[in-house]
């Protein structure tokens, strides 16, 4: 997460390049999330786990996600535009944002004890 600090500064300059955002499709994003390999560390639903953070319903803006995914020098390997187009990333973002609100653990008997 070393990169997160500089995200705000860089985000503005990148807005221009993220053209796919308006036309983004959660359905295409579901497919891209699998085909581009994000599921491997984040789980098919972006739920997170031992090898990646929870991405479902991420609170980060798309611009920050873009800066992070392209430049991370932390535990996640970076994805170049060749590996993951801006359009794919925007679709992935739409897919992650569309994930359902998880239930309160108190309402799940197995987690309520």
């Amino acid at each position, binding site marked *: 997460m070393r990169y997160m600090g500089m995200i705000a500064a860089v985000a503005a300059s990148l807005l221009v390049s993220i053209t796919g955002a308006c036309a983004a499709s959660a359905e295409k994003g579901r497919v891209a999330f*699998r085909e581009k*390999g994000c*599921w*491997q*560390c984040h*789980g*098919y*639903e*972006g*739920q*997170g*786990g*031992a*090898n*990646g953070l*929870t991405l*479902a319903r991420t609170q980060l803006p798309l611009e920050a996600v873009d800066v992070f995914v392209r430049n*991370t*020098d*932390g*535990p*996640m*390997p*970076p*994805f*170049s535009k*060749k*590996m993951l187009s801006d359009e794919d990333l925007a679709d992935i973002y739409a897919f992650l944002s569309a994930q359902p609100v*998880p*239930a*309160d*653990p108190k309402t*799940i*008997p*197995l*987690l309520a004890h």
Partner: protein
Amino acid sequence: MTDLNGKDGYDRRKFLTGAAVAGVTPALAQMGAPAAAQAQAAKPPHAPSALPPNAKTIAAEIHPPEELSRVGGKPGSDFMIDVIKTLDIKYSPSNCASSFRALHESLIDYGENKSPEYISCMHEESGVAMAHGYFKASGKPLLTMVHGTVGLQHATMGIYNAFCDRVPLIVIGGNDMDAAHRPPGVPTFHAAQDINAIVRDYTKWDDTPVSLQHFAQSMVRAYTIAMTPPYGPVAISLDAGLQQEPIKEHLEKLYIPRYVPTSPPQGDSNAVKEAARLLVAADNPVIVADRVARTPNGVTLLIELAELLQASVVDQGSRMNFPNTHYLNRPAGAIPNADVVLGMELSDFWGTVNTYTDNGEDGVGVNGTRLKPTTKLISITSIDLLTKSNYQDFQRFQTVDVHMGADAETTLPSLIEAVKSAMTKDRAAAIEARVEKAKKAHADIRARELHAATVGWDSSPISTARLCMEIYGQIKDLDWSLVASEGNVSNWPARLWPIDKHHQWLGRSGGYGVGYGAPASIGAALANRDLGRFSVSIQSDGDLMFAPGVLWTAARHKIPLLAVMHNNRAWHQEVMHVQRLANFRNRVPNYGADRGPIGTTIENPDIEYHKLAESMGWWARGPVKDPAQLGAAIKEAVAVVRSGQPALLNVWTQPR
């Protein structure tokens, strides 16, 4: 070894040669085909005067009357069984082989297949890993017999895992050392001059006894060394001649040395005092435990120390060291805030207090520290007493401020006393003031974990959090033991199951040799069966397929185990590794027609693990993909296991 002059008239070597020339079938069968052909070619040709005798007639003619033994006196291997029986070894999980046939025969006939009882294994690695799991559930070592050369070669990874996991077990290998007299062909392929060389780097000790008295001493010595902390595997190679020939009582009167347990090494009193001084003075002491609790008493002692100091405890989980229900239990995130770290039996101290990020320039990882520059480090570990050179299980070198080469569990009572002596009124008050904050921090972590578990709760494939909680829901009222958790389920059992007993978690493989999980869980389940506990394992797909034949062993010997699969249809760890490398090189990885990089997934076709298990005598169901059906399926499986059978559920899961 071999008395070639055979004073008592029984010369094994001459007998074998004679038998081969006479065309005696058993001896011939021992030879490889070319050797047998050669022996027959040497026979003078003769014309049959009548029909050649059939096998039955030959057998009737050449076998002595039943009541007469062909061995003059007590066979050497019977004495070996006498020795082994004094050590109270309950089972011998082994794959049969001619190089130890004499010992095998003595065990089941002379020894009545008791202490140890023979457990049939499909693979030597399975036998060793069963012994590995058995020890961690029972505290008692087992003996595994392996074939000369090839059997030992199969056993090696299991032995390495046990070595890294500080687990005692005894490997007895056959070998026929007399090059001039042993059967040519196959048995000679399986003989070696220094057969244990292949395991010497990861056993505590090995020997090749050359007399029966030497065997008796070596066997008791091997047991003693294996059971002296730091524990570890030992190997004894048994010459075939020594096993097969009769005891030459007229030459030596044999005795069996008595086994006396070794008291484990304890930390030096000055070092213990210095450690106590640092810990009492610390404002934020953190205890990190990896293999502290060799026995349940280790848990009790660690709780006492932690409460005296109100110190956070990070349990790295190679054993169950500290209850996760205790308010002082913390995840590794507690380490950076420490002003004193007490590392106890850590397999990797450097990795505990440093970071390594696999994302550097030119593919070289980046090192970092987790510590403040002023943090003091204390280490108590017996591993320093057992460091070999070749294999790198000793990990990177970490400088520490107080360094005790001692067994941590054994040192705890004196450390507790030293902490009490070093305690002043002021320090006691300051320490007591930490309690409320610690309780709140523990409750907050628990709440966060519960929330994390809800994300993807209803997804299919089934989330690892859901998998683990559905299992827990069905076993929570039993005296359960999580005997292994292979593959990676994001550590949910340690995060969410209340674990407060030593046998509720047995730790991992030690050397990360995959293939440990299936056999070790069955070995542990064997121990738990006898102790009246319910065994459950989380069984990954990749791990199971290295040597799935051990499933049959569980059914054959009626070992009850609930194996719930974490079937993510991949060697998933490697899916991520290859993806990472592709990213570093800015290349889109070649997935072929699969979900992950070629060579890393287990699909097309999917393996029907439930059918595999069923074919070997297990109750099995699957594939379960719908989370709503999982609870009922586990409930059914639990009932089967409680009736004494092994049961497997093939569950399709999320990758992590």
